[in-house]
């Protein structure tokens, strides 16, 4: 299902750190029912762009317009290591203002087969922590999901489970934007590709056109 009009629109967003330009002024639109892949080498500005669109980072310039809830999966798992999976989910559900934090946590734990035990989440495997990271982004039923290399540390089964969630959101009219360095994922999952290099967009178009710039970008 496709919804007309962009759900999120970033207009000329840029970020500098002192003299260093992490992201040159960039536009990005995400429309309902599409999946956009952000591709580029390390330090290209993918995480910066996603964090700005997610509202986790203030742009030095530009604005982000959105009227829907946005879920964000940061590259590095962001949760409280001394709290259990359930406690993390309940805590962020409360902060999201959800009416039944405990019930929400139970549903998400079952859906993503997360470890239900009370041990601290910091003691979980890397894969489980990343799944918790992804699950936290789904609190509040976002219509837009921004994922920063979400499957980098997951095994094939866990990857499939994450993509199932992403596909379900997209099929339901939501928008997905994911940063990746996995070229296979671009072809399999993306409707559109945005290629960043040195903080600038060097290509934006269908996955079929990505092959032409792939060699230039990744060498």
């Amino acid at each position: 299902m496709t919804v007309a009009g962009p759900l999120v629109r970033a207009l000329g967003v840029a970020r500098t750190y002192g003299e260093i330009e992490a992201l040159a002024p960039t536009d990005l639109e995400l429309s309902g029912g599409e999946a956009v892949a952000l591709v580029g080498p390390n330090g290209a500005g993918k995480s910066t762009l996603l964090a700005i669109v997610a509202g986790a980072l203030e742009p030095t310039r530009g604005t982000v317009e959105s009227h829907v809830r946005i879920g964000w999966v940061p590259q590095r798992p962001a949760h409280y290591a001394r709290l259990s999976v359930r406690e993390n989910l309940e805590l962020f559900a409360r902060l999201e203002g959800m009416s039944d934090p405990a019930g929400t946590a139970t549903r998400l734990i079952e859906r993503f087969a997360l470890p239900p035990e009370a041990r601290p989440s910091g003691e979980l495997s890397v894969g489980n922590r990343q799944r918790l990271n992804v699950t936290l982004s789904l609190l509040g039923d976002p219509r837009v999901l921004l994922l920063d290399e979400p499957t980098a540390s997951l095994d094939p089964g866990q990857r499939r489970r994450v993509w199932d969630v992403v596909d379900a959101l997209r099929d339901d009219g939501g928008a997905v934007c994911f940063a990746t360095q996995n070229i296979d994922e671009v072809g399999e999952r993306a409707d559109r590709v945005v290629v960043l290099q040195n903080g600038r967009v060097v290509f934006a178009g269908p996955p079929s056109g990505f092959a032409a710039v792939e060699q230039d970008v990744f060498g």
Partner: protein
Amino acid sequence: MRAATIVLRKDLRVLLRSPLLLGALLAYPVVIALLVGLIAGYASSKPRVAFVDEDHLPPVVSVAGHRFHLQAVINDVAKQVTLVRIGPKEAARELADGRVVATVTVPPGFLGNLETMATSPSLVLRTGSGGLSPRVTQQMQSLVYQLNQKLQAGYIAANLRFVSLILHGGPGTFLGRHFDLLGLDGTQAELAKLPPSRRVAVIEHFVQVARVGLAQTGAALRATANPITLTQPASHGRTWVLSAQVQAYGIALTVTFLALLLAAGAAAAEKDEGTIGRLRRGLVSFGQLVWAKSALAAVVGLALGATIAIVFGLVVEIGGVTGGEPWARLPLLFVGVTLVGGVVGAAGVLLGALAREARTASLLAVLVVLPVVFLGLVPRGALALAYWVSLFLPFVHAVRWFGAALYDTSPWRTIGIETLWLVGIGLVFGLLARGALRRLAA
């Protein structure tokens, strides 16, 4: 405030899950309270002072016609120490061992000098090297001062008896010699019997002037014997007990140190765990984050302050320290430690946000807290700049707040002023911390 409360509850839960940190937080105030209690007890206790009588003083001595129960006088004026009467060798040994903090020796010939006043008699004071030596020296100086005051009364009375003899005549004794004196009254009577002449008139005039002058001798003698006397008026009703003063510093130091450390670590941990990015996405504002961390420091400050006050109170009560513990004032003190904890917490958030990393934040907090405390200890007269800088930091106001709460009979004015200072300092640190958190999230 709902979001801040949720973050606060999370931080408390995380704190309770950190066994080492929790253990340190529980042990720290207990250890501090015990140490402070022992210091207060030691400082308030009567030190043992050896009394060596090499002149074999009799129980009662007669000085200038006055009988003194010398040991009773010494015991009376030496209430702040425990005098132990021992021999010279044992006294030297105990002083070396630290079993007595000082020895006071009455050397041979002391009583003879005292009775004849040919030369001033001396007591010999030897002190050990312990921390109480300066206090014992002062107490012994006070003892000699008070002994002199009591003896002066006798000497003045004796001198006035001689003046009375000169004025009115009669039998008297001086250095064992008995005599019978005519006196100015008798002289005037004898002069009245003589035929009037210029020479008689001159002598009569002298006698009259001498009588008037000598009549004022008593007041003059007393005034010259005590040209300056020291009186100590009550200082605004302050009970001023050492235990409360030490306690105020102990609590202020502990709360400042741990609240700063904890808040700095908690703020930087949000960066370490990557959660500050999630929180700032409309879930928790930077201002609410400052509130949450400051509230965490306030709660911990209350727990620390209460533990110290209660344990300290038990120690001083069991130890019988002078002044005891003002139990009725503890609720007021608890308000103060909560306020100070919150204000120091805001400063801690600032440090944590500047440090950007929990370990660095903890180290920075330790490095910062010591100068802050020392600045608060610098007297105004010693270094004006340090004093003025300390006014804009919470420690000195915390000490004044706690001191007033614990031992001012009318604490409200001080508490009001210090509360204003603390709230102002807290707001400034809070605003700076909010800005620094914004930078931390970038």
